[in-house]
């Protein structure tokens, strides 16, 4: 059997090295010329519990996890089998095996560790019957035994990679290379022995399957990156040299990456007492002349919102990241959702004056994180990058050349001391930082000075202020200042419209139907649209990244061109469809929603099926998605 893509899944317990094992294998596949997409599933606990990582690889770019998978490497849950913990986790012992059955493709492969599982327990899972039914090819291997023979039991994941390479007809050297790069000393030697021993042993199998890894052909150097990597590297290249944060899943990923990198780039990272401090530290650093960022997940972002308003009023540039997980409140800590849209758009007192981007993948995360810094510092406002647990954890292969861009350490609309000498000052020598309009400056922007500059002193206040920064309740000044701040958004919209668009479109221009989506759901929708068109439907899609200011013209044109439009997003109240209707003031009768909010991201086939159901005017067949409004309403 030859196929365009292969989906390989490794399952086990949290803390078993599932993550590092899959990362190595993904890298090996990428180096063999394949395009990669990985999906990570993990519970909210430190060790134990059922976890898996799925790698989908193909010669063509892979945009989502696809439907189901082909190869299961089941390591078992070591924690569950520990005598001490057995009582607690015993009932989960078989989950790494049984939980995978529903999604394993017909003709798929199962490798499980006989060193971990008891044959009687396996019998209880009815593996044999199910394998027969689905034409699965089952290979029981004593991975634990092999690992112990040459090293330690924990190295059984390396043994699993050896078996995988043998069964998929792959060159074991590519895994060997990664072990050599990532390990040293006895650890490396032991792992290499485990790898080769397992590989040799698996070659002896009387293979019954015909599944092989696809051949890759990209000739360009690729890198394996998550959305978090994209945001962090984008920030670094934008000249960000200060980050403050407090750990919270899934934001911690960006915070961790930046904390590890920043000192090397001469910057400062601060882990502080809470998100309130984290958000305000970033303001202090930015006010003092450094490009700064902070962020959190929904719960922590709730604490940051007062600082967000302060940034808007004091016109302090800053970039905040909001990494969504399923809410409300602490919700599902390690599961994904796009439920914080309204939270990031309108939280904090008064009228919102901020920029909000929702990148769709690692490349966009890099671009839009750079753009967020550029706009924040040019226009003196907070810029937000919103992403979610899905994008946080998914590894994608991206051509390295994409990131080969010059750093942009420009502080934006900031005056030098020479320029300050000619700037407006009041009679007491105070710089008029908040003038109602400044000739030559960007629309709505009153250029700033930095503390320590001669002749630049001013007061930045969370209260409404006169041009000098002093508190003012004068109604005329108030209106002028508010108008000026809001004018910035209009100017930014114009600037974004003139540049390369952040919105992604796919499908035939004259398509009958449209699918509209935003953020990380985009690439799954694009894959669904490809399939729908291949099947003879006439569909096009648009993935929106600019949430504020909203890309009015682009979305209007898209919606005008289609008969009906399905809006796909991961929340229960159709927040993005609501935003679109609010911003455009029409199309209410053209749009309906496909929603998913069970903690899992969409699979492209769910969108394909739901689209067909929706044009038939029916209900979605799948249990975990819903239409709003329901057909017939």
């Amino acid at each position: 059997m030859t196929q365009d893509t292969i989906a390989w899944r490794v399952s086990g317990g949290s803390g078993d090295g599932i993550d590092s094992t899959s990362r190595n294998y993904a890298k090996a596949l990428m180096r063999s010329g394949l395009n990669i997409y990985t999906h990570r599933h993990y519970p909210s606990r430190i060790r134990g519990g059922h976890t898996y990582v799925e790698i989908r690889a193909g010669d063509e770019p892979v945009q989502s996890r696809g439907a189901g998978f082909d190869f299961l490497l089941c390591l078992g849950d070591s924690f569950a089998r520990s005598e001490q913990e057995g009582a607690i986790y015993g009932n989960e012992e078989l989950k790494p095996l049984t939980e995978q059955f529903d999604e394993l493709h017909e003709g798929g492969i199962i490798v499980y560790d006989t060193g971990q599982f008891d044959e009687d327990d396996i019998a209880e899972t009815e593996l044999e019957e199910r394998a027969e039914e689905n034409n699965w090819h089952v290979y029981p291997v004593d991975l634990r035994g092999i690992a112990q023979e040459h090293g330690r039991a924990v190295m059984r994941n390396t043994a699993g990679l050896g078996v995988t390479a043998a069964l998929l007809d792959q060159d074991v050297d590519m895994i060997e290379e990664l072990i050599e790069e990532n390990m040293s000393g006895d650890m490396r030697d032991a792992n290499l022995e485990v790898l080769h021993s397992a590989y040799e042993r698996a070659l002896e199998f009387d293979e019954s399957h015909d599944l092989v890894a696809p051949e890759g052909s990209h000739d360009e150097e690729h890198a394996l990156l998550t959305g978090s990597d994209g945001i962090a590297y984008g920030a670094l290249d934008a000249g960000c040299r200060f980050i403050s944060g407090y750990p919270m899943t899934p934001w911690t990923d960006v915070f961790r990456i930046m904390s590890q990198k920043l000192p090397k780039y001469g910057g400062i990272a601060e882990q502080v007492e809470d998100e309130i401090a984290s958000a305000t530290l970033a303001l202090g650093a930015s006010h003092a002349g450094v490009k700064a960022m902070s962020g959190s997940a929904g719960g922590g972002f709730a604490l940051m919102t007062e600082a967000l308003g302060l940034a808007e009023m004091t016109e302090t540039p800053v970039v905040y990241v909001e990494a969504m997980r399923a809410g409300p409140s602490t919700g599902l800590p390690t599961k994904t959702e796009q439920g914080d849209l309204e939270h990031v758009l309108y939280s904090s007192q008064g009228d919102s004056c901020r920029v909000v981007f929702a990148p769709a993948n690692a490349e966009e995360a890099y671009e839009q994180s750079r753009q967020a810094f550029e706009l924040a510092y040019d226009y003196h406002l907070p810029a937000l990058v919103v992403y979610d647990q899905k994008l946080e954890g998914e590894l994608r292969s991206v051509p390295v050349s994409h990131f080969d861009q010059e750093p942009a350490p420009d502080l934006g609309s900031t005056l030098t001391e020479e320029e300050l000498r000619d700037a407006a000052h009041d009679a007491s020598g105070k710089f008029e930082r908040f003038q109602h309009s400044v000739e030559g400056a960007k629309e709505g922007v009153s250029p700033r000075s930095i503390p320590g500059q001669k002749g630049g002193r001013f007061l930045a206040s969370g209260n409404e202020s006169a041009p000098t920064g002093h508190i003012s309740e004068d109604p005329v000044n108030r209106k002028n200042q508010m108008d000026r701040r809001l004018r910035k958004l209009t100017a930014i919209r114009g600037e974004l419209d003139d540049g390369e668009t952040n919105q992604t479109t796919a499908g035939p221009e004259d398509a009958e139907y449209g699918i509209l989506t935003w953020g990380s759901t985009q690439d799954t929708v694009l894959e669904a649209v490809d399939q729908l068109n291949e099947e003879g439907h006439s569909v096009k899609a648009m993935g929106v990244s600019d949430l504020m200011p909203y890309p009015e013209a682009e979305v209007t044109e898209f919606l005008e061109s289609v008969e009906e439009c399905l809006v796909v997003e991961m929340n229960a109240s159709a927040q993005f469809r609501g935003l679109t209707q609010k911003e455009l003031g029409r199309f209410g009768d053209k749009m309906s929603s496909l929603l998913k909010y069970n903690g899992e991201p969409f699979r492209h086939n769910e969108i394909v099926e739901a689209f067909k159901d929706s044009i038939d005017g029916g209900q979605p067949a799948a249990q975990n998605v819903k239409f709003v409004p329901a057909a017939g309403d």
Partner: protein
Amino acid sequence: MSAFSAINDEEQEIDQDTFTPGIEPQATWCPGCGDFGVLKALKQAMPEVGRTPDETMLVTGIGCSGKLNSYFDCYGYHSIHGRSLPIARAAKLANPGLEVIAAGGDGDGYGIGGNHFMHTARENHDITYIVFNNEIFGLTKGQTSPTSPKGHKSKTQPSGSAKDPVRPLTLSLASGASYVARTAAVNPRQAKEVLKEAIEHDGFAHVDFLTQCPTWNKDAKEYVPYTDIQDDDEFDFDITDRREAADAMYEAESRLWEGEVLTGRFYHDTERPSYAEEKRSIGEAPEDSLAERYFDDDAEWGKSVEEIRQHHT
């Protein structure tokens, strides 16, 4: 030339009026308010420290104390209730050449901003923190504050507060502040000297500044007379010794509750390195000013693609 030439500029004349705004907004503090005492002491202390308005950044919270920023001429950030410290901390880290002063009230500093207070002291950031302590919420019109005495009656505590007030000095010392003093608006000479010392101190300097609120806290009158703890033979203690300082603080705070006011220096640790120094010593902060680098045409800006090649390919 430096982009921040105001920093360490010796040419500018610094006198008593240097920090007075040329166009002084009409003060909205009530007649007889202790906040005037803080303003005056600070205006007197700064020239003696030798700092200019352009190299000084004052971060305030909100409320009556927050208005200090309108009557004191320097770079100012009038932020939100309780948040002056994190803003001040980061500004100092970003540009260590700045003189950074944070100020707030007792509700601001010991209530809503209590967590920041504890952690800023713990980290020993090189900033000065002045808390206007009048034992009342003033601008919101007279509610009980974290330092209001037990039994204090107010609109929100009609039967009298059931809570013991916080002990700001003890809290500060226990959290790790390296300079702790208490002074009072009614004692201008000491106030100026204490602020000067605090600003010159290399580390977190906390000044609990007793101010009277003639409108909402009539008990404020009890701040007079006060006793300078250094001038009193009864309190002969070593201000560099944590244990002796702790005892003196405990005593001073207990006596304040009884109506006797003890002010002065309570703790001064000149040995402990500031947070920025600690961070620099482990390689997590640059030697130079981060802010300066953005104006330096020769600054090297690392490019992340090298990092991506190294770790992700």
